[in-house]
């Protein structure tokens, strides 16, 4: 869609990109060693005080990259799922993907007999949950609603598995598994981050490619088909992208609460109702996760609050505020 026709969407994208930049600057600046952008940005490029370079490149940089990628993946995934289900409550969290990742990762930590690392297990869990929900719902099919409802059920079962594992595990093991139940960027296995980077690089262009057809799909399947959209193919592609993004993201950071729900909500607010703001949601998600993680590691220092708790704590009231201040409306 041309910039002339959609100035609001373009402006919204710029605003969200600005928010990401602010989040990046903040994340680099604050911490045990406070650092102004005048010091941190050159350090990022490898210039200045060696101590600054160490802090920025070894400590804050990788964490920042992980936060950006996880947030972008969750935001895009949430946006696609909400569009597919025509329901703003449909996110990787509600369709069981988060629960699957948590259950498998916790199982790996508390010592169920597996040789896989927790992050690999989280990815396997996300894939299992998505496959279960898809299989039980009868394929990507025509009804996103069915997928959501089945996903809720799958998520509940896997959530119960997590609880059972934690209750039966020795207290130390349960403690070690805790981060996987709330979502944090503290662990962030490097291999998982790399994989997420490749995944996003492949998935986001695909999502943008089908973006306009997705926005037609919001009207209803038969209208979209009448407008020449190959509904099944578009649905399948969008669902695949959503599941891959969510799965790779939870493999890095665990289930970061509310991000996939909030980011598209914010993006829609800023970009207007006409299109499906996949890119906007990715930007909003990146900014949100990065800010949440920065707040979590600095506000209560030296104790670190997991980013997933921060997103949940700021996310709940924010969502309520969004819903209460927007016009009374039906769920799409």
């Amino acid at each position, binding site marked *: 869609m041309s910039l002339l026709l959609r100035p609001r969407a373009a402006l919204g994208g710029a605003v969200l990109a600005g928010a990401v930049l602010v989040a990046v600057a903040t994340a680099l600046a604050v911490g045990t060693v406070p650092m102004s952008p005048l010091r941190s940005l050159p350090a990022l490029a490898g210039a200045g005080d060696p101590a600054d370079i160490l802090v920025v490149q070894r400590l804050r940089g990788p964490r920042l990259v992980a936060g950006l990628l996880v947030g972008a993946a969750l935001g895009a995934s949430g946006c696609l799922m909400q569009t597919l289900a025509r329901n703003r409550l449909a996110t990787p969290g509600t369709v069981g993907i988060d629960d699957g990742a948590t259950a498998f990762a916790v199982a790996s930590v508390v010592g169920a007999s597996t040789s896989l690392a927790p992050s690999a297990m989280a990815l396997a869990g996300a894939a299992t949950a998505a496959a279960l929900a898809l299989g039980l719902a009868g394929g990507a099919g025509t009804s996103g609603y069915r997928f959501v409802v089945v996903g809720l059920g799958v998520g509940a079962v896997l959530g119960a598995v997590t609880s059972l594992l934690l209750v039966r595990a020795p207290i130390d093991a349960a403690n070690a598994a805790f981060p996987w139940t709330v979502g944090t960027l503290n662990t962030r296995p490097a291999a998982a981050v790399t994989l997420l980077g490749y995944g996003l690089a492949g998935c986001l262009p695909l999502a943008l490619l089908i973006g306009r057809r997705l926005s*037609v799909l919001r009207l209803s399947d038969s209208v979209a088909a*009448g407008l*020449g959209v*190959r509904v099944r193919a578009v649905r399948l592609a969008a669902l695949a992208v959503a599941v891959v993004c969510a799965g790779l993201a939870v493999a890095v950071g665990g289930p970061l609460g509310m991000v996939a729900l909030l980011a598209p909500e914010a993006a829609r607010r800023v970009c207007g109702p006409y299109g499906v703001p996949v890119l906007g949601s990715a930007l909003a998600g990146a900014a949100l996760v990065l800010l949440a993680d920065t707040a979590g590691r600095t506000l209560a220092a030296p104790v670190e609050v997991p980013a997933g708790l921060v997103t949940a704590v700021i996310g709940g009231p924010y969502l309520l505020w969004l819903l209460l201040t927007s016009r009374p*409306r*039906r769920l799409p």
Partner: protein
Amino acid sequence: MTPPATPPSAQAADPSAVLRADGVTLAHGQAIAVDTIRLAPPPGRLTAVVGPNGCGKSTLLAGLSRLHRPAGGTVLLDGRDLARLPAREAARRIGLLPQSAQAPDGLTVADLVRFGRQPHQGLLRQWSPQDQQAVDRALTATGMTALAGRLLETLSGGQRQRAWIALTVAQETAVLLLDEPTSALDLGHQLEVFELLRELAAAGRTVVVVVHDLMLACRYADHLVAMKAGRMVAEGAPREVVTPELIRRLYGVEAGVLRDPDTDRPLVVPRGLAP
């Protein structure tokens, strides 16, 4: 907004496309909904499909629009098998307004109508002045220009229905298929929609509309198709095919069929259920 030079509705890309159903059978799983129907809605005319609930009217429309793949027979568009036509190309020739279409909140009338240009756009073919002109023409033809900036959810039922029709008109197809476009409207709005459809047909389009109201069908249709249990039981000009026997056969209702002295069209007067 400049008024179009030519009459707004005379702009169909190829106004003389011929749509023909050749022994088409449509099935929902094992259940046959439409049984070997032959139908060629005349171009430039308004064709109305009538029949009792569940007789397969809507399924027939879905079959004619490539939404429902025939289990037997073929739908031909200018002699080419519709099922083999690429989806986007078919959508440039055939427009469909399904029943109970829903739009997400926050869209304006103009936003909705713009979606009608989807089949004319592609990766390399982005929004163009031609698209904008088509949208303007569609808004003019449906009398929605003044409401173009209004949010859909703030419109009355009749206005919203006109906005949806405008979307289909903006598609600029030679064939227009509409599934009960007047079902939730009051009498004035029903007539408004049918007057509009008649204009669209007069511009050379093939217009097929599924309608429940026999009175409206008799009043406006050039060509009437009556269906019962998936089969076509009558076809032709309303004044030739609408008879007390047809009404009894379709609906199980005893009715008198009078002539409207002004239009010489049939007037159906129900008297009671057939014994």
